[in-house]
């Protein structure tokens, strides 16, 4: 008994799984670290940014002012500070993308795993549901819904984008689950009498976790693009400032395509999206190692 206790304690000390693995995987290559720093920077911007600014200050005497000490990135059509708009607009964009990606992964991974593992009738029902979701045209649905909702809160936009977006993930995860369920260790798990829930969520899920996490992060990029695009096209009414609204205003009100005045106003949100994408792509490299102990060991 004493030896058993000692083993458990020792293993806890020696492995310290999550944190140590995370640090090791991220610091192995500088690109990953840069990616993580970029992601953390934007997350902090989304959370804390608005705390530093009050309501958007409007300065009617300085429309489309060039960068200056007072306005680092110049001002917009109403004389508001562009930097302030970028920072305060980040919260809505990032929260929406995160929520959409979360819902996509939650529904997609769960439904894909259950369908792939159970097969049979459950599989058929879930996959018909998936086919249905895959065929919902997202854009028209958003336009119709915008007559009812204002999409002022990230929850509404995130929910709609997420609920219409999980079909592809479910299909891909199901394909992986079908292959995974035939692997020796899952056969053994069934033979040893482990419960179905344990097998699906404790044995299969960790094995597709790298894929699911990459999917989650890549879909964040896609959802940032999608929502910014919707606002840019003016398909949804905007009640608050965000990056998409800025692009829309810069092009359609500021004439950024014709005059250089509104150029910075146009470029600021675009550069933000670009840098965020870069951060996510750089960080993706570390994900396989986060979950696979074998890759972690390679020097």
């Amino acid at each position: 008994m004493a030896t058993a206790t000692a083993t458990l304690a020792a293993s806890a000390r020696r492995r310290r799984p999550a944190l140590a693995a995370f640090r090791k995987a991220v610091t192995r290559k500088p690109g990953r670290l840069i990616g993580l720093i970029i992601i953390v920077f934007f997350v902090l911007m989304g959370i804390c940014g608005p705390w530093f600014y009050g309501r958007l200050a409007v300065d009617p005497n300085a429309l489309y002012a060039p960068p200056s000490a007072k306005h680092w990135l110049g001002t917009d059509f109403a004389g508001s500070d562009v930097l302030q708009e970028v920072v305060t607009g980040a919260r809505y964009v990032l929260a929406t993308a995160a929520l959409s990606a979360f819902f996509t992964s939650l529904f997609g991974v769960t439904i894909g795993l259950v369908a792939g593992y159970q097969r049979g009738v459950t599989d058929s029902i879930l996959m018909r549901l998936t086919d249905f979701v895959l065929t919902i045209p997202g854009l028209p649905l958003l336009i119709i819904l915008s007559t009812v909702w204002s999409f002022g809160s990230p929850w509404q936009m995130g929910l709609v984008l997420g609920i219409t977006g999980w079909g592809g993930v479910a299909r891909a995860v199901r394909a992986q689950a079908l292959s995974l369920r035939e692997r020796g260790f899952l056969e053994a798990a069934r033979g040893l009498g482990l419960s179905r829930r344990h097998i699906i969520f404790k044995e299969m899920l960790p094995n597709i976790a790298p894929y699911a996490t990459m999917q989650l992060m890549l879909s964040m990029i896609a959802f940032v693009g999608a929502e910014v695009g919707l606002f840019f096209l003016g398909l949804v009414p905007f009640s608050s400032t965000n990056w998409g609204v800025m692009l829309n205003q810069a092009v359609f009100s500021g004439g950024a395509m014709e005059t250089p005045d509104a150029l910075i106003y146009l470029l600021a949100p675009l550069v933000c999206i670009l840098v965020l994408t870069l951060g996510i792509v750089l960080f993706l490299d570390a994900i396989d190692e986060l979950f696979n102990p074998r890759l972690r060991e390679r020097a």
Partner: protein
Amino acid sequence: MSEVQVRGLTVEYQTSAGWLPAVAEASLDLRAGEITGLVGESGSGKSTLALSLLNAVPAPGRIAGGTIDVAGVGDLTRLTGKQLRKARGGSIGYVFQASQNSLNPLKTIGKQLLDLGRSHEVADLRALIARALDLANRMGLDGQRVLDSYQHELSGGMRQRIGIVFALVLNAKVLILDEPTTALDMLSQASVLEIVRKVHDENQLSTLIITHDIGAISEIADRLAVMYGGRIVEDGPLLEVLRRPTHPYTKALIGATARITGDVEAARALPGRPPDLTTVARVGCVFRDRCPFAVAVCAEAEPPLAAWEGERRRACHVEPTTVLAGTPAAVGEPA
């Protein structure tokens, strides 16, 4: 006393030609303290029979008839859901074919052991770990190190032994090993078999070893059952069956074994090919096409598995003495 009684077990697979039996009317006893070897060619239904002992025949298969009575559990074919889950691992320990691959690559062995304990609602996980350490140490593993390892840090033979630890750690009294020595080198094979014998003796288990290697099984088994075309064609105490095979197939199988000493040419390959699900004879004896002793009645009626000489059973129309005398020249005498 029989720990497991299989009676009239029929397992069918759905094919384009309808439901076809992979195991037909199999009856088998696993007795406490005895190792039973189940031998047969690929596709003879050995693994299907073994999986049905867990009531885990994969789709598109099903247990079509018969009973599997396990001491303390009841008829396994009628169990479902949680009861069945408890019986697997709890009453019957199963070591899978290629059990080197039976471990989750992402978790340490100790973590997987705890998962197993929690899934079976073991109250004292410390005792479970202690028991696993004890089992591992008795199998010649460094238990502490092994529990802290991932599967890729262990060798094939070690993983095989871990598979046995997992099968026994919940105090299962029945141990089933499906091809335990396949994919291991000769030395690992010998040590795994030795360990199985040792663990078996120490815990008074009822063990079933499924293999196609009649040489390996003859080292450790007490009883031998021979399968062909989904039927058990002969069984009995190991030495009696090996010395005096009374079924033409058993005789041919033993005659086909190459030996380290003696003339290699003495080993005779069995002519023809083993039947599969679709080509196996529906009427008459399944072995008659390859049988040098076949007579007219073999094509008409399937021989029943009947008792013979005390503990032995055989399913053959031909008189045992004729087979023992071994007149047909096609079948080599065992060296």
